């Protein structure tokens, strides 16, 4: 990663922090809406509720892994400020996602998955800050695709909306990480 790009990224980060703060509010709005639908969710139950809980639990597992991955990145000693701050901010978003998903799974009568005792990450390939950013971008891109694939299969449309809200957040993470790597932040008009 060139210093020119890092400098550009640094300038953009301050504005993004403010923006990400607002996006956090948006996600909180979705979370509030979801939690407010507690009775409706509980009443839904049945096969559809169980199916939705299973989908959410898979998403929860991926979010918990993302939290662990950002922890590895933050503790690697390879990330320098302000990139380190960015990683910690993104990890915080994943914690919020995981918290909401776990509560919703429980509301649907499911048992939220717990963090694994140990995760496998390709740490042997992480030698530089760019390596860590590229690894994080890969996970975020995958998360965008995973939520995109989950949105249409929820029985409950409110859950689809909440998943779409998380998808938007993950897409912003992916774009910011790509930008920090000197890549086009938004490579296409559509995600898949």
């Amino acid at each position, binding site marked *: 990663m060139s210093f020119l790009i890092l400098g550009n990224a640094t300038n953009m980060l301050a504005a993004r922090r403010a923006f990400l703060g607002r996006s956090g509010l948006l996600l909180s709005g979705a979370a509030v809406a979801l939690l407010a639908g507690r009775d409706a969710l509980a009443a839904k139950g049945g096969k559809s509720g169980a199916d939705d809980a*299973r989908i959410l639990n898979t998403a929860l597992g991926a979010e918990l892994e993302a939290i662990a991955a950002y922890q590895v990145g933050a503790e690697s000693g390879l990330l320098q400020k302000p990139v380190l701050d960015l990683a910690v901010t993104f990890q915080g978003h994943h914690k919020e996602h995981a918290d909401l998903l776990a509560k919703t799974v429980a509301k649907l009568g499911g048992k939220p998955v717990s963090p694994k005792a140990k995760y496998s990450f390709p740490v042997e390939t992480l030698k530089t800050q760019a390596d860590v950013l590229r690894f994080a971008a890969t996970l975020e*891109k995958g998360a965008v695709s995973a939520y995109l694939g989950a949105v249409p299969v929820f029985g409950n449309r409110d859950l689809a909306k909440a998943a779409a809200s998380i998808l938007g957040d993950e897409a912003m993470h992916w774009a910011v990480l790509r930008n920090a790597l000197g890549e086009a932040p938004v490579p296409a008009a559509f995600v898949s």
Partner: protein
Amino acid sequence: MKPLAAVAFSLAAAASPALAAGDAKSGEAIYSRCLACHALAYDRTGPRHCGLFGRRAGSVEGFEYSAAMRKSKIVWNEKTLDRFLANPLQAVPGTAMGYAGVADRKERTDLIAYLKQAGGAPQCTK
């Protein structure tokens, strides 16, 4: 007794027309969609893909599968993968893979070609 879903899956997979040869390079790009949950060489939210072809579904040791996948009696090959990837939740009701699927047949063919090729990659053979 073979579960009804497994019978239906086997019949549908057997009835699928022969798959054209896929483009593994294009399939690698499509595989990036899978990387929130899967990796080639190690288990994540989903099981590893090294050794996928010829493997019985739900059989990676130590990975916690859904009961539906464990009981599916699927053996992964080009046809069963094509059927599953088109609509995982329909192919194996109760699977933990809460994903709408890869609707485009060409994309599935390319993805399967990549998975097949990746099985011979160093990270899968070491």
